[in-house]
């Protein structure tokens, strides 16, 4: 059967005119049909074009190693397909919130970020323009009954974490339902990028999620390079991959330490806290910023490595790698830690597939979802990548996947440092071509980052759709808590460690 989608590879651009334009019902049925043929939704959004709304579905298939796109036009209400394709439920709510579209038959039709619709759009919930919209002030799912009690956590938390609101419906210690409400950190990045100064856009992209500076920066650069039709230099690609893996190492190390802390196992917590700093400092060796600000630029990287720095990085990598091994093996050797992490927060492979989970959470449930292997980009095209998976889907599995990936990243960085291609780290990038759509996928440390950019007839950016892995995965956390002990929530939450600002944009 021929595909309904216009297909292309990760990082490429296609002319808008070549993207098949279907009537709305065929378009929606097409998404459901394609999902049955091994495709899943990477991004689903709408763009205003005068009076009509253009709907774009960006889908991807790991087995085909291809990205596919199709479009449709929306004039009235949008029929919901969440009941058939649960992975789009937040995308539909997002379209409704941004453009005032009523989504018919949505199982849980609520705002996503509690923001006003974009200019020129009505409000999907009929709220007046002067009516204040308070974040997360809304009706939550309620379980009734005398023995049910409700626990509300956040948005102000006891630790130094981001704001988010969690509403539990509990029966004693058992969680019947968890609803997560976010939106406190909405900054309007997507609109700022298309409407503002292009030079500032790069800096905004690096702030989508502060812990994924390199991931989001790289996704945006790859999309721009796709629009221009010029690839980054191969040395730049290698340096980007090194930076991306260093970001992964720092965060995975931090997460393993934080998980140890949450179960009250102090040695690993303290050691990993320090070793995370070692990896951050290695990023600073490359670009002067511990979080990799300014390192990735369209065309490659803004910073090159001198032989002296390469030797320094190799030395530090070896030291940090052996420290990390000691610290984490301490964790696995402690039976009480294993007993604590084994079981809670389990997500079945079926649920993970239905919800469209990505990244560590998906791989911990046994799904082979990794952009580095499924949609190879940059330096990852040189050698096949083996995704690290586990089959349990619980806290232990997510911790184990992090540890396996950390080891893999260390080996990869060591190999890349040895075989850095010669040449410039930065090549000039052509101006974006007009009327194009480019999709860039990056495997950030949390998972798949998807940036879609569209240009108008003059080559200016008219739309930029950012999907942080957290957008897919927050629902996974809510589901993981069903029937679990409420006392296990902090541990489950940490094992997902999702971004609030990456979701809020």
């Amino acid at each position, binding site marked *: 059967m021929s595909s309904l989608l216009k297909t292309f590879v990760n990082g490429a651009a296609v002319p808008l005119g070549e993207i098949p334009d279907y009537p709305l019902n065929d378009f929606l049925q097409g998404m459901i049909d394609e999902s049955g043929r091994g495709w899943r939704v990477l991004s689903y959004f709408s763009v205003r074009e005068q009076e009509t709304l253009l709907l774009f579905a960006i889908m991807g298939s790991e087995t085909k190693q291809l990205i596919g796109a199709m479009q449709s036009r929306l004039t009235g209400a949008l029929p919901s397909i969440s009941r058939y394709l649960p992975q789009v439920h937040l995308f539909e709510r997002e379209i409704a919130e941004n453009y005032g579209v009523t989504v018919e038959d949505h199982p849980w039709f609520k705002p996503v970020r509690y923001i006003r619709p974009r200019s020129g759009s009505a409000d999907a919930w009929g709220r007046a323009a002067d009516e204040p919209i308070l974040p997360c002030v809304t009706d939550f799912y309620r379980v009734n009954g005398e023995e049910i*009690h*409700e*626990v*509300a*956590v956040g948005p102000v938390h*006891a*630790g130094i974490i981001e704001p988010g609101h969690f509403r539990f419906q509990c029966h*004693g*210690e058992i969680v019947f339902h968890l609803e997560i409400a976010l939106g406190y950190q909405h900054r309007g990045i997507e609109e700022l990028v298309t409407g503002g100064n292009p030079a500032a856009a790069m800096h905004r992209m690096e702030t989508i999620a502060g812990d994924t500076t390199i991931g989001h920066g790289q996704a945006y650069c790859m999309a721009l390079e796709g629009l221009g039709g010029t690839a980054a230099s191969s040395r730049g690609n290698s340096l980007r991959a090194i930076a991306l893996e260093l970001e992964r190492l720092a965060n995975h190390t931090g997460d393993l330490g934080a998980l*140890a802390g*949450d*179960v*009250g*196992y*102090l*040695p690993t*917590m*303290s*050691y990993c806290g*320090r070793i995370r700093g070692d990896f951050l400092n290695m990023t600073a060796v490359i670009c002067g910023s511990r979080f990799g600000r300014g390192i990735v630029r369209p065309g490659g990287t803004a910073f090159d490595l001198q032989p002296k720095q390469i030797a320094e990085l190799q030395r530090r990598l070896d030291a940090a790698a052996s420290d990390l091994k000691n610290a984490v093996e301490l964790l696995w050797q*402690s039976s*009480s*830690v294993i*007993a*604590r992490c084994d*079981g*809670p927060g389990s997500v079945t492979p079926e649920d993970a597939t239905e919800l469209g989970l990505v990244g560590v959470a998906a791989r911990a449930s046994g799904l082979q979802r990794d952009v580095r292997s499924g949609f190879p980009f940059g330096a990852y095209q040189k050698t096949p990548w083996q995704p690290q998976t586990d089959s349990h889907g619980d806290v232990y599995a997510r911790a184990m996947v992090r540890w396996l990936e950390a080891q893999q990243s260390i080996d990869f960085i060591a190999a890349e440092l040895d075989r850095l291609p010669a040449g410039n780290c930065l090549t000039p990038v052509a101006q974006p071509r007009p009327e194009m759509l480019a999709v860039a996928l990056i495997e950030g440390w949390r998972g798949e980052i998807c940036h879609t950019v569209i240009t108008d007839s003059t080559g200016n950016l008219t739309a930029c759709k950012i999907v942080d892995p957290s957008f897919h995965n927050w629902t996974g956390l809510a589901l993981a808590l069903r029937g679990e*002990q*409420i*006392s*296990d*929530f*902090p*541990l489950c939450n940490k094992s997902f460690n999702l971004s609030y600002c990456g979701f809020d944009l």
Partner: protein
Amino acid sequence: MTAVNTIIHLLLAITLPPLLLGVINRTKAVFAGRCGAPLLQPYYDIIRLWRKGSVFSPVTSWIFKAAPVITMATTAVAALLMPLGNHPAPLAFNGDMLLFAYLFALSRFFTVAAALDTGSCFEGLGGPREAAYSCLAEPALFFSFIVLARISSSFSLSGMLNDFPLTVWFGSGAALLLMVGALFIILLAENCRIPFDDPNTHLELTMVHEVMVLDHSGAGFAAIMYAAALKLFLLGSLFVHITVPFRSGNFLLDWLAFVAAMLLLAVVIGMVESTMARLKLTRIPQLLIAASILAAFAMLLVLRQPS
């Protein structure tokens, strides 16, 4: 001599307890490769809190304000019943171990009531947890008291624990070993230490004891912290009397040995906390029941011995 011992007893009971917390924290820091807070940090914390003003939620009643006072008072009275360093307690009478156990129960009742008084959903979770776990811990404590009463033929804490001869270990070693295991579990559980509770965590949903006192502040909170340290000290003293049945006859040496044993116990608790993770909340009852069973077997063993 009795007067001097009573004064030393009171001085130690008043001044020493926070040091145990300091030693535990320092031990944990060393295991984690950190320098750690000063040994006297718990004292600084209590003094700082004592000087601060208190904030009371308008939805709370007198119970909330009374709870810290009652906790402090009951623990202080319990301190008069527990013999320290092989010297009789200032207060001793037949059946005082019942008062000792239920003074803590009274304090717990008011802590739980105050937690429910706030109407906070977090504290509403912590209260029932504490109440349920303490019910499960109680049998172990009482079985242990029966063992001690049988061995010493005394119904007072001072009589049971003073002059606890080393030879008992030769005669009823198996029973004592079981009881010591049970008491150590109770010591950790009653004082909210890992693996039962994590005194350092900031995650309200996982807390047992700590979450019940979240709304207390200022002097009231200082009283709660101090009472918690004193409780650790008293139950620790019970444990130390049995595990270190050392008596020189020199009263000063006995006191020094007692202080050293208490500090050593704090180090051991710190080591336990450093080398193991917390239990899943659903596993806590299992371990507490195991402690009760250990103590029950100890009781069976000593009851069938000819006295």
